[in-house]
């Protein structure tokens, strides 16, 4: 009886371990972050791109208004792909598009905007890349939809037609 009990429990332990490893094998080892939503936007002060003056986050984001924060850079190729979507969103009066210029050369960034158009109402400079991390981003491009000073939607990678429809539905 005792021997039976031991062998049954041993077998069940091995089965459990087998399933844990089997499940682990199927997991991808490429990081896909949880798209956490509904958390507060970070409090920060940073320089503006055009005016060269310091601005506080409290002065940019007002309550009861929709904002779209887009992290971009002139050296980022997918940013070029999503640019027409941002230009489209600029036409919508319900949302304000704010840009965070990530680790970029000012001249290159200016050329980028002259060439493709400027969809941003304000551009914040993030020379060291720390501001983007405070937003919970780890690359470019990333986009956040903000309402009532909270992030309600996050897009990792370039925006596309689908995300445009989704954003227009939200606002």
């Amino acid at each position, binding site marked *: 009886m005792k021997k039976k009990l031991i062998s049954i429990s041993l077998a069940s*332990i091995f089965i459990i371990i087998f399933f844990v490893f089997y499940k682990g094998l199927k997991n991808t*080892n490429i990081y896909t*972050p*949880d798209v956490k939503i509904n958390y507060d936007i970070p409090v920060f002060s940073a320089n503006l791109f055009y005016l060269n003056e310091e601005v506080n986050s409290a002065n940019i984001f007002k309550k009861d208004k929709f904002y779209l924060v887009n992290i971009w850079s002139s050296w980022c190729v997918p940013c070029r792909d999503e640019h027409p979507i941002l230009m489209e969103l600029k036409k919508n009066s319900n949302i304000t598009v704010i840009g965070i210029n990530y*680790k970029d050369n000012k001249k290159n960034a200016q050329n980028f905007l002259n060439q493709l158009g400027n969809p941003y109402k304000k551009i914040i400079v993030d020379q060291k*890349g*720390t501001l983007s*991390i405070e*937003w919970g981003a780890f690359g470019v491009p990333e986009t956040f939809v903000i309402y009532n000073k909270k992030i309600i939607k996050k897009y990792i990678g370039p925006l596309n037609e689908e995300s445009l429809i989704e954003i227009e539905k939200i606002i």
Partner: protein
Amino acid sequence: MMKILKFTLLIYFIFSLNFLYASSEDKRNKITKNLRCLVCQGQSVYDSDSEFANSMKILVEKKLDEGLSEKQIYKYMQIKFGDWILYDPGLSKNTYILWLLPLLIFLFGGAIIYKKLIKKN
């Protein structure tokens, strides 16, 4: 005599400053070693020289300067990026098996050995 005393005090002061500096750097290194570089494969923020890791190092230093403790920084990163950012994740519903399975196996093995010993005696 006073001169020697002053000199010793000065030396002591300089050394204590040095110690402070070193300890803050040690702390930064310790924290960045426990943070995973999200854009790399199997590297910590400390080991990596990627854009993301370099910004992360600056941010950790900034947070230390702001007076945040090691635990508060981990919590801060965990809120932003989830459990994956930590090499040493805490006990949560996703990590029960990770933490408890070795303990269970250890207890089970111990029980078998104990039983065998009792039988022998």
